[in-house]
């Protein structure tokens, strides 16, 4: 009951309040959405702490059981709580706090993202084969867009950027509009099922 029905009841009541507040004059006057928005902000901020506690519990168990690679869990927890404690002690204005952030996290995440470039290059080389007519069209369009997007496109052929712009503006926009309409209809249907309590997969159960 507490694990399954309670979240469903809270979801349905919250949705009903928001719909009432957003679509009725009385609801607008009562400013219920504004109040719930503030609750949501506080809930999301609290969820961060909850996430940290949960992460500590899970990785604490890994360390306790000496699971393979447990030293990574030690590194994770030390970094997590040391940075948290430093922020509490010196505040996020302190140079030391900012230095740790700027010198580690920023570069590590940027590096992780940059590495994708190499995989994309390798994948493009191996996968882009003109096996069918559709694949040939895809290859030609990809080449035009890639070269038209960078200054060397202008240098190679002055009309390349305008052809690239046309591809993005006309066929691409037409396809994107269709995809977007489909996504929103699907999203609306899913949201409705969640609000009515018919969809329970997000709570660990199966949809009705």
């Amino acid at each position, binding site marked *: 009951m507490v694990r399954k029905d309670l979240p469903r009841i809270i979801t349905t009541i919250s949705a009903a309040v928001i719909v009432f507040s957003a679509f009725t004059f009385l609801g607008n006057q009562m400013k219920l959405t504004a109040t719930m928005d503030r609750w949501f902000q506080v809930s999301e901020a609290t969820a961060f702490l909850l996430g940290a506690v949960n992460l500590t519990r899970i990785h604490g168990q890994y360390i306790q059981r000496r699971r393979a690679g447990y030293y990574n869990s030690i590194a994770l927890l030390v970094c997590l709580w040391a940075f948290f404690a430093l922020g509490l002690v010196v505040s996020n204005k302190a140079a030391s706090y900012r230095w740790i952030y700027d010198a580690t996290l920023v570069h590590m995440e940027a590096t992780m993202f940059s590495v994708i470039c190499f995989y994309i290059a390798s994948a493009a080389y191996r996968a882009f084969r003109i096996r069918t007519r559709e694949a040939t069209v895809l290859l030609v369009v990809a*080449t035009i867009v890639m070269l038209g997007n960078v200054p060397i496109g202008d240098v190679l052929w002055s009309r390349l950027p305008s052809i690239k712009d046309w591809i993005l503006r006309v066929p691409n926009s037409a396809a994107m509009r269709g995809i977007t309409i489909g996504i929103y209809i699907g999203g609306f249907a899913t949201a409705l099922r969640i609000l009515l309590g018919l969809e329970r997969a997000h709570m660990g159960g199966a949809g009705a």
Partner: protein
Amino acid sequence: MWEKIQSIDQRIVYVLLALSVIIPLFSPIGMPISINPDLTQKFYDFVENLPAGSIVWMGPDYSPGSSAELDPQLAAAFRHCMMKGHKVVIMSMWEQGAMLARNVVDPIAKEMGKKYGEDYVNLGYKPGREAALRAMVADVWAGSAGVDINGTKLGDLPLMAQVKKLDTCIAVCIDYSSGSPGDGDYRQYVTNPQGIPLLTGQVAVQVPTRLPIMRSGEMKGLIPGLRGAAEYEKLINKPGVATQLMDAQSMAHVVIVLFMVLGNIGYVAMRGKQGR
């Protein structure tokens, strides 16, 4: 031989790609950069034509993974705003966005002699995604919990006396987006309902998805990826990191295209050899 061309060791691909990026950084070629009249130029014109002293709301909604593309966009547009005498308020829906923005805008403001609290304010990261935005529309001070990124009370920042409600004081919202939450939330909860114009800076992979929205008029201008940042730097006549990186990006694209062509030459030749 044709088979070999089709299956070049991926380490060779990696090395050549790395060299194509690194060499132009040390020996720039200086390829000319043309301005996209439908995207970057429109963004620039909008900021350029705002009355001096307009309040511009900026949302750096990205993480370090996208900072290579979006930091230069933010830098160029922030510099342009400062040059025109506009006031800028920054608020991020991404945990790391506001700190990244601080690293970008603080040195520019210092260089241009602009004062924090008077010419610009960084409200920091505000949790709650669309709920945070809706809260800002109703009451910026309450939605920000009354403090900026440094924990300074908004009452101690003179600029914030003019920024109470988004719909009554903001001339334009600019969102630098690399996903969700981002410009979609601004369109849904701020700019469309309140009639505030929206400009965006986008990572290159998101540009195709935003072009229909741009054409519909929901966005007044768009900076597309690193190329767009380089175009903006050219427009404000202040070449920066994006301009420097354009040659590297050009060469990387050429290397990828060459490998694609090479692989297909091998494929076609093999197919011909096998009589298929």
